[in-house]
Structure formats: C-alpha cells, structure tokens
C-alpha cells in the first residue's frame, strides 16, 4: 500500500492552474520516499547543478507545512503586536521567505552553524528556538532568548548552532567565515551557512570574506536571500549585476527557487557536500517578502500591491506544500486547516505567556557586559560597578 512514485510532470507545481492532472496515490507509510520535481531548475555558475528530483517523505512534507504555518503565524502576530506598540524599534518580518528556513533545516544538522542578519525570527525557530523565547525577546522581557537585552535583531541560540541576529548589514558575513574557519580548525566535518540579503551583496566585506574563504577552502556556504529589494531599493537599481550567484566569480554558485522548500533542501544538501570537499559556494535563493523591509516600511511605495498579491497567489511556499500534501493524499483540507488553527493557538498561547513574563531587573543593565571569573572584575572606565537605583 505504500507506493512511491516518480512524478513525471511538474504540473502540480506550475503556478498557472490549480486544476492538476496527476495520478492519485494513497501513501499511508509516512517515511517512504516520494520524489518530487522542482518547478524551476537550478542554475549553476562554475558548477554542475544538482538534479531537479528531490526525495522527500510524507513526514517531512507534513513537518514543512507545520513549521511554515507556525512561522507565518508568528510573523503575522508580530505584526499585530508591533502595531499595538508592544514591540518597539525595528521589526523585520520574514513571511514569504519561510521556505528558505525550513528547507535549510531539513538538509543539515544542529551541529552545522547558521548565521544571518536581522530577519532572524523564523530561522531562530527553525534552529530550536521556542515561540515563548521569541515573543518575550520581541517584547523585551526577561524570558527572551537574549534576556530581553537584544531585541528583534539579536536572537541567538548557542545550543542550536544559531549565531544570530546581527543589525549591521553585511557584518555577519566575516563572522560566518570565522565560524567556518573554526570548523576547519577543529576538523569537525560541519559547515556554516552565512545568510545575507541582496542589499548586503554589494558590501565589500562580502568579497573580502569570500576571498579568504576560497583561499583557505573554508566550509562556508554563503546564502543570498534575494527578495529583490534592499530596504527600499529594487535590486536592479542597486546592483550592476543582480545575478548574485555569479558574483563570487571564482567561487561556484547556484541559483535556487527560494519559495520551494524542497528545492532549498536539495540545494543546501548539495552545498554542504560541496563545501566539505571543495570550499565555499554561493547559493542565491530567489525569494520574496510580503511585508516591507521592516514594520516602519509599508512596503508599497517601491513596489505595487499587484506584485505582492501576484507572488502570494502563485509562489507562496505554504501553498506549494499544501498542494503537494493534497496531491499525494497525505492529508486532506480539513487536517491542514486544523494544523493552521493549531499553529494559531500555539502562537496565541505563547503571546499570552510572553505578556506575563516580567521585564528585566534593573541590575540586568550591567550584567553580561564583561565575563566575570578568573578573578577578573571588570567595570567601567572608573572601575565602578554601579547598582542601579531607578526611581
């Protein structure tokens, strides 16, 4: 009764028609392999791209759906919390780009490192972060992953191999190469995924770091999450050559459909193998963000609403996986709706709990500036450790 089938057409994933002709298969064994073809082939630069056929299982597809639904819910809830002024400052939302996070997680282990910029909420979740930690950190509470002292742009999870969470565009790229350097130094057969955006792709530090990574064959995979807009500027207005996967020149590159979780998974697995043997590789994920650059940006002054809704209809990552699940009869409409409801419930519960979480103590202002120990007591320039006396 467990049938695995090789899909001969990519009609399922063609964005044009929801009416799909395919063979219905009953697959009750959730771990048997299903092979799916990605709708868009990979394009390689100085490398042979991997095959379009991706192996997956029903279990994996369900987990994709669940995780992406949770991420989507979390980001939308963050939107409301920001408008309710519970989240302040900058809040960069990832909805639309979830496929990159879940696809990457599916291809690697927690021992591999991921480092990214400020659009980090969903990747944090993928690395093992909890909703409570996430919302508490966003609202500046004690239970946040960085004890409320980091904020939206500074999520970290050391046990999960998630190195942040960085506010300055492009500054995480040399850090990522440093993580890869440490991995090479320790010889531990792990890789580092350094994520950056199409805006950061024009930073000098990227090319400096790329040079060094290629020089020393560091196991670094540089992933350009190309959502086509660097803050408010479209990519064609910012980059002379928007083919970011080619800009590594001597470093091989791969262009991937970033809205297809399976394509992302295939590319990341391929990249990991490559990096462990041959050194750095660039992955360009062709993706899209529905929200603006951050919550202070409406997102519609530099692009049309039609464009946004067009992408949402045709390329939405969650919809893709939903169609797959329905096509393979792994779940029916109601079950998927239930999963989404469950996600909503989890998010609402987490928010309620996070709201109850207390604000950090005043003394927390001065903790973690230095590491104490070995008899080293560190203070400010006048060597005073001040106890806060707030009114």
């Amino acid at each position, binding site marked *: 009764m467990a049938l695995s089938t090789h899909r001969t057409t990519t009609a399922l994933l063609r964005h044009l028609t929801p009416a799909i002709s395919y063979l219905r298969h009953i697959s009750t064994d959730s771990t048997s392999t299903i092979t799916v073809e990605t709708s868009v082939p990979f394009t390689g630069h100085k490398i042979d791209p991997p095959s379009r056929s991706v192996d997956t299982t029903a279990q994996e597809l369900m987990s994709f759906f669940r995780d992406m639904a949770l991420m989507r819910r979390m980001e939308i809830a963050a939107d409301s919390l920001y408008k309710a002024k519970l989240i302040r400052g900058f809040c960069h939302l990832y909805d639309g780009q979830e496929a990159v996070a879940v696809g990457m997680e599916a291809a690697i282990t927690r021992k591999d*490192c991921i*480092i990214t910029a400020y659009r980090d909420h969903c990747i944090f979740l993928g690395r093992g972060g909890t909703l409570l930690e996430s919302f508490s950190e966003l609202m500046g509470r004690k239970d*946040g*992953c*960085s*004890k*409320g*002292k*980091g*904020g939206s742009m*500074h999520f*970290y*999870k*050391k046990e999960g191999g998630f*190195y*942040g*969470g*960085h*506010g*300055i565009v492009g*500054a995480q*790229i*040399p*850090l*990522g*190469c*440093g*993580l890869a*350097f*440490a*991995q*090479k*130094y320790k010889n531990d057969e792990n890789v580092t995924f350094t994520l950056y955006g199409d805006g950061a792709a024009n930073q*000098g*530090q990227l090319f*400096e*770091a790329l*040079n*060094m990574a290629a*020089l*020393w064959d560091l196991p670094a995979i540089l992933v350009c999450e190309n959502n086509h807009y660097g803050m408010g500027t479209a990519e064609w207005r910012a980059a002379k050559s928007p083919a970011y996967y080619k800009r590594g020149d001597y470093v091989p590159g791969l262009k991937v459909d970033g809205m297809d979780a399976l394509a992302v998974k295939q590319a990341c697995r391929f990249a990991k193998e490559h990096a462990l043997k041959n050194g750095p590789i660039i992955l360009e994920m062709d993706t899209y963000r529905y929200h603006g650059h951050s919550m202070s940006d409406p997102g519609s002054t530099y692009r049309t609403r039609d464009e946004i809704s067009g992408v949402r209809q045709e390329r939405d990552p969650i919809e893709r996986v939903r169609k797959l699940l329905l096509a393979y009869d792994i779940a029916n409409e109601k079950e998927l709706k239930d999963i989404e409801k469950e996600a909503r419930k989890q998010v609402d519960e987490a928010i309620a709990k996070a709201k109850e979480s207390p604000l950090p103590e005043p003394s927390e202002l001065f*903790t*973690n*500036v*230095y*590491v104490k*120990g*070995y*008899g*080293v*007591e*560190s*203070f*400010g*320039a*006048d*060597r005073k450790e001040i106890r806060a006396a707030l009114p």
Partner: protein
Amino acid sequence: MAAMLHTIGVASPVASGGVFPDHQSNKFAVSSLHSLPMIRSEARSNLSSLHESYRAGKLIAKAVATKGENAAASGASKPGHELLLFEALREGLEEEMERDPRVCVIGEDVGHYGGSYKVTKGLAPKFGDLRVLDTPIAENSFTGMGIGAAMTGLRPVIEGMNMGFLLLAFNQISDNCGMLHYTSGGQFTIPAVIRGPGGVGRQLGAEHSQRLESYFQSIPGIQLVACSTPYNAKGLMKAAIRSENPVVLFEHVLLYNLKERIPDEEYVLNLEEAEMVRPGEHVTILTYSRMRYHVMQAVKTLVNKGYDPEVIDIRSLKPFDLYTIGNSVKKTHRVLIVEECMRTGGIGASLTAAINENFHDYLDAQIICLSSQDVPTPYAGTLEEWTVVQPPQIVAAVEQLCQ
C-alpha cells in the same frame, strides 16, 4: 611650543604642617582650593633607602604575581634571561599557544614573513599555517573572522599591522567584539585579543602615527591594556589570551627594541592592575606606554632638583586601576597625567574625570594632563617631536604643580 598646562589658581603660598627632610628644600603651597593643612605621611623617611635603588635606574614592578616579584626584585643576581620587547611578546604568545591548542594568530604577514615587527617570527613553521594565519589585506573581514571564530570557542590573537588600520575594522570591534556578549544575553563569549603597534614613531607620517586608544575607550565590553616593558608585555599578552573578555593590547612602535631581563618562570600579570614604577611623595605622575620613558627621563631632572615624584604606569586603560591610583593620590595629593593619546576625549581626559569624581577631596591642586596635540602627526622631525609630550614639559608641569 604649545604647553598644555592647566593654570592653577594659587592665592598665597602657605607652608603648614609636616616636617621636610633636609635634602628636600622646596616648599609646598596649599592651593586656594583647600584650606586644610597638608599632612605628610610619616613613611617618608622609610623611602629614602629605596630612593637609592631607584636612582640606580632599576624599575621595580610591584603589581606582579608572587613568583615573579622575587625574581624581578633581585634583578641581575637571579638568572632570568634578557630579551627585547618583541621577543617577550613572542615568548608569551608561544607559551600560550603551546598551552592551549585553541589559541591561534590571525593577521597580515604574521606567518611566513614572521610578522612585520617580528613578534610572530618562527611561529608559523612551528604551529602550522592554519594556526598562524596569513590574511589578505582586509582588516574588516579578518577581524570579523577572528571574532566569529571566537564565538565558537577558539581564542584568536588578531594582529593589526598598525592600530590605525584597525579603524577599518571598527564596526566589527565595536559591535561584534564588544557587544555580542551583552546582546546575546551572555550566550556567547568573545575571548579574542586584538593587538598591534600604535603611537607616534620616527617620521612615519600622519596615518601611521595615530594615537587611537581614545577611539576604543568607550566601547562597552572590551578591556584595553598598554604594555611598556618586556616584563609587562609578556605578562599582559598571556593574561589577555587567557581572559574570557575581548582585550585590545596596545603596543608602541618605538618600544619594540627595549631590552630587559625577565624571569625564567612562567608569570601572568593582572590585566587591571597598574604598575608602581617609582614610589614617591610629592606628586603622582600617571602614564603609560612610551610616555613612561619620557617621564622617567624627566624624573632624573626632577630628582636632581629635589622633587620626589611617584610614577605609576597605569597599564590598564579600561578599566582604570583606581585602587592603586587612589592610594597614590591620597598620599601625594597632586596628579600629573602624561600620555601620548589625543587631548580631546583621550585616556587622560577620562582619567582626569575619574580622579576628580572619586578623589576630589584628596586633591590639593587641579589635575594637570599633558597629552599629545590634537593634530595629525606631521612628517617633519621637529614638528613630530612637539606633537608628543617631551621631558622638559613634564619637568615644568611638575614644578608648576608643586609650587
């Protein structure tokens, strides 16, 4: 010549209290700021014998680990070994690399070339190309790389060929090095050491003669130390590598060839302790790095004129060792700061503020701070000389302070 001296308002000299020994003939005036009589410590007479040994030119460092103290105190009689400052740095680095396999060196020309100031000479053949990494000329990225490696537990020693070049890496040093421990809520520590020569050299030009301690000073989360002798260079290097916090170690281009005899035993100095170079009575002179030698040169003149200055090499630029400094201020009541840093927003400016805040009641006179001029270092020799503080200026400042 621009003399950056604060004017001290002295109403009328009033000699009061204490007994002056015969060989010290100068009078001390109580400034108009205080009306209390000066109370001189009785310990003065005990110091005269020590003066003899100090006049012999031996610098005794009090702030040392106990093992090292005995060795340093009995100078030439104990074996020890003589070496130059850059060799001392190398020794410290080598010992730490042997002790802990996580210590690595990252910088330009550190590997095959041996380091532009020979601090890492011989380390690459010994430890390998990956542990002593020759980088391309990309300060921003290799500093960032070092910090990323430190996040995972490695202990990189990042060398800037000149501290001025590290300005290119300022974002990485400030945001990622200094702040990551805080913004991650304590999850990541950055045990990196950033070191390199700075300061005014011999006609190196403006961009290669920068005094940048002030720029790094306000970054939260890092520690700044400045070495000045082979003894403290090795000790501070080892302490910096062992510290869990990011440390910026300032060396000076002109001090690399200083020779001194240092102990054979292993010793590690305290990163936050100041060094008592010469105990004294009349005035506290706070200094660090190269200016220490200008001060000691001025001290020769001052002692001949009958003054007894106390010289402290503060070594720790962030945080200041206010304990040692405070004890000295409480003893002498007069402070002169001699530094090579810029006048505006420099180490001396912070130190002046810190001493004023904490020890205001003990001061008999306004603090005088002699810093280098707020100008780019000129190329011409004479102009370059006047950019930094010279011994005659120090002598004049002490005389003014002790009027």
